[in-house]
């Protein structure tokens, strides 16, 4: 099987990284493929690239299917380009749980940027990962970050109520809502809206958009204020999202959205940054640790043990918790290499 390692003209991981950092978009694309496929090339490339990342503003855009995420990403990209910023886009769509195939359709709305060398759009299939992103989306964003893009927009799959993973991958999380999608009780349910730094009611030209926005404002801002010690003590407090209205298809409200993103970036960069960065690092590292554990349990030395334990759980001879303990014990006795 071919790999970027033996791709003539670019060389191995070192050559790919050098070329991508020098602005070679094909090298960047191949690095992203390596990251997506979790090849050895990707791991050595990330060792070099990760220290260079951390300069971009990484913005997560999430919300229900059809709420206008892709159109908003295209529109926001236009506004950011007018402001002279370079933009990387990672657009995630779901993979089929049955065939593993995927239809990646987010570019349809973004093709106006195809001729612009300072916009780089990459579609990713979620490949079975739940949570709204692919397991490698954060690493892909880090590659784009290191490659020098100012603004990185991560568009999740269409989400429901609890796909909050994007908040761990992004500096700023935007949750999109469409008008008339639910009442005030929807707005006070736990989950997706809680991780929003900005809530955007898109399709602002539709009836009910302003009412939806004012309902969201009333319910989301009614939560205890971050500074109110008596109300919340030392417990984690919900965010106080700003609610905006946009019409992504016409661009109305989108410059205001970029301004709000910048304000959020300015605030968090100083104040909340260490805690938020730490939380993001934790989410990313634990995800890789879990992945590595699973890979090792499926590797040759341990596959027989894993299969036996899984079969016991399937037949209700063993409960999942005891099974997990057995597998972790097996890991410690089977040292790699």
């Amino acid at each position: 099987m071919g790999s970027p390692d033996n791709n003539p003209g670019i060389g191995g991981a070192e050559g790919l990284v050098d070329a991508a950092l020098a602005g070679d978009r094909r090298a960047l694309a191949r690095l992203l493929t390596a990251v997506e496929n979790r090849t050895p090339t990707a791991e050595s490339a990330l060792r070099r690239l990760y220290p260079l990342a951390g300069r971009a503003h990484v913005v997560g855009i999430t919300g229900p299917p059809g709420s206008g995420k892709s159109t908003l990403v295209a529109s926001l990209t236009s506004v950011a380009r007018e402001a002279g910023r370079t933009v990387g886009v990672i657009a995630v769509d779901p993979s089929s749980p049955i065939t593993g195939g995927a239809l990646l359709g987010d570019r349809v709305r973004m093709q106006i940027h195809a001729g612009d060398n300072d916009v780089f759009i990459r579609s990713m299939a979620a490949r079975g990962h739940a949570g709204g992103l692919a397991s490698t989306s954060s690493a892909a964003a880090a590659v784009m970050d290191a490659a020098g893009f100012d603004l990185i927009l991560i568009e999740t799959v269409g989400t429901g109520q609890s796909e909050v993973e994007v908040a761990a991958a992004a500096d700023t999380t935007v949750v999109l809502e469409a008008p008339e999608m639910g009442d005030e009780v929807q707005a006070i349910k736990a989950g997706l809206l809680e991780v929003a730094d900005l809530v955007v009611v898109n399709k602002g030209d539709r009836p009910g958009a302003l009412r939806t926005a004012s309902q969201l404002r009333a319910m989301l801002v009614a939560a205890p204020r971050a500074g109110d010690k008596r109300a919340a003590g030392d417990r984690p407090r919900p965010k106080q999202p700003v609610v905006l209205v946009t019409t992504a298809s016409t661009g109305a409200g989108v410059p205001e959205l970029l301004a709000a993103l910048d304000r959020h970036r300015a605030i968090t960069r100083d104040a909340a940054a260490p805690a938020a960065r730490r939380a993001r690092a934790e989410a990313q590292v634990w995800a890789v640790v879990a992945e590595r554990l699973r890979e090792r349990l499926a590797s040759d030395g341990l596959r027989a043990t894993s299969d036996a334990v899984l079969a016991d759980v399937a037949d209700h001879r063993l409960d999942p918790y005891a099974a997990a303990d057995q597998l972790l014990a097996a890991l410690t006795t089977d040292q790699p290499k």
Partner: protein
Amino acid sequence: MTDRPLKVLIAKPGLDGHDRGAKVLARGLRDEGFEVVYTGLRQTPEMVATAALQEDVDVVGLSILSGAHMTLVPKICRLLGEAGLDDILVTVGGIIPDDDVPALKAAGVAAVFGPGTTIAEVADFVRANARHRG
């Protein structure tokens, strides 16, 4: 991972507005286990080449019903070559007269699929001929 899906760009260059075929194929290839990037109608050759580069696809499938294939297809193949993407498998579908097929193949097209081609035939051809790119 070793058996990662092949990535296919389905694009409709030119001005005809009939993308039912392209959508049916995109969906069919999804069901065959491919990761399919669909870019929509009215793509310029430059848009197709940019999408192929950024998405790092293994295959570009072009759907053309307008009769402009002799202009559009060689141009797309040339742009892909100039971008260093000549290892991408290019296939064409739509209404292509038999007489034009040799010239398209000379321009770099691996296969031309006319009306009546089944999705399984396209999928099998792509699996057999696309270069897996890591």
